[in-house]
């Protein structure tokens, strides 16, 4: 099946509004964690959600559009990380298709793998375009790695390895917590419904 055909299927019916919701969620999730004063960003939570519930290509689309919209809304550097989000969407979607979102331990492993992959993808962008400076707390980590004699690319990669798996593990777990107990009535019309753990029958 061609990618175009796959995308057509993945964006039909309720998946289209849900995809849009998840893109918006990526952008506004930071407001929720900020209001709760929790020091995490969850800026790929929507991408992960849509990748699990709809499919890998929809996930990739959600990732790309989220970064582009965020870029248009006042943080231009986000656009450069669109490829990373696309990879996150695709990878999560394929993991979900193989049943990785049915058990918490697979979700945990998947989150860590995803984190490593994200670190690999974002390191070159971050190193060559931004010379490792992201104006975030993680800059200190990059500075540390560089001060002990690593190149920029290596330092950014090590920093990514240190923080991304944790970040993605949190996102994955959060999505798992949220999607675990959805009623069939709501999920049955999404193509990824089979990716979810079976809801324990009412006792």
């Amino acid at each position, binding site marked *: 099946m061609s990618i175009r055909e796959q995308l057509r299927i993945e964006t039909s019916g309720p998946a289209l509004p849900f995809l849009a919701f998840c893109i918006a969620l990526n952008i506004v999730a930071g407001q929720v964690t900020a209001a709760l004063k929790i020091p995490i960003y969850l800026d790929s939570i929507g991408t992960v959600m849509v990748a699990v519930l709809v499919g890998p290509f929809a996930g990739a689309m959600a990732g790309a559009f989220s970064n582009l919209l965020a870029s248009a809304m006042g943080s231009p550097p986000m656009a450069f990380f669109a490829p990373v989000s696309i990879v996150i969407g695709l990878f999560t979607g394929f993991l979900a298709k193989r049943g990785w979102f049915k058990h918490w331990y697979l979700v945990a492993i998947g989150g860590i793998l995803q984190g490593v992959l994200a670190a690999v993808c974002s390191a070159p962008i971050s190193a060559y375009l931004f010379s490792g400076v992201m104006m975030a707390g993680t800059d200190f980590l990059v500075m540390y790695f560089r001060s002990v004699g690593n190149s920029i690319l290596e330092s950014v990669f090590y920093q990514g390895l240190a923080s991304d798996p944790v970040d993605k593990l949190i996102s994955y777990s959060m999505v798992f917590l949220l999607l675990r107990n*959805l*009623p069939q009535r709501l999920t049955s019309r999404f193509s990824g419904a089979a990716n979810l753990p079976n809801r324990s029958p009412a006792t």
Partner: protein
Amino acid sequence: MSIMVQNLSFSYSTDRKILKDVSLTIAPGEFLLIVGRNGVGKSTFLKLLNGIRKPTSGKVLIDGMDTRENSVASLARKICVTFQNPADQIFAPTVFDEVSFAPRNLKRTDPESIAQKALQLCGLEHHKTSHPYDLPPAERKLLTIASAVASDATYLAFDEPSAGLSSIEQNLLEHVITSLLAEGKGLLVVSHDLPFFFRYATRVVVLENGSLSFSGHAEELMEREGILRRAGLRLPPLVRAKRIISAMEKKREVGGDDVVTL
């Protein structure tokens, strides 16, 4: 022991006051119906009661606790406010978890049995293990009412609790209201549904331009046509029918023609 609202004023910004110098008291066992046009500040008033918003001037005392000095969490043990849209609060995977959320958070003793009783009262017991979103919308609304009942607060406030209910759920709501009043809870209801609530309300207040334009018994309110119209309210059909008949009879007495419009 009562809710005391004293000279309460509130505004989000300096240019427009939402509430101006509102005073009222509600005692346990009372049913206060709050009516008024959309956007007149009824929901804001509810948020002021449980301390989510703080008064610009004046004060709100819940059994003597000043809302400015107490946290929302501690006020929630005294007064439980339920807002209009069930979708804004339903989160749990089962109806039972949803209803026991409040008593657990509020550290009630034996939250399970409180939740169980609330479910029974609202006729949702057979749905205990269902997912809230497997319930039809009207029963989901009833679920938010059960959640409020389970908070076991002395005062319960509801925003449009009868919206979207069919006769089955309305009958249940009626039963909930009478049981709660018998238990000595204080009820505050914001609603447009005068035909449904006027039977239970011990007092009705009308909010207009930020202040109370009427405070009294429902029967009295029904005589005040101007206020009713400005508040966008509708009379119960029976009252309307009686009105039309008496108006016709009056016209007949004075010998006018009997075309009556209402």
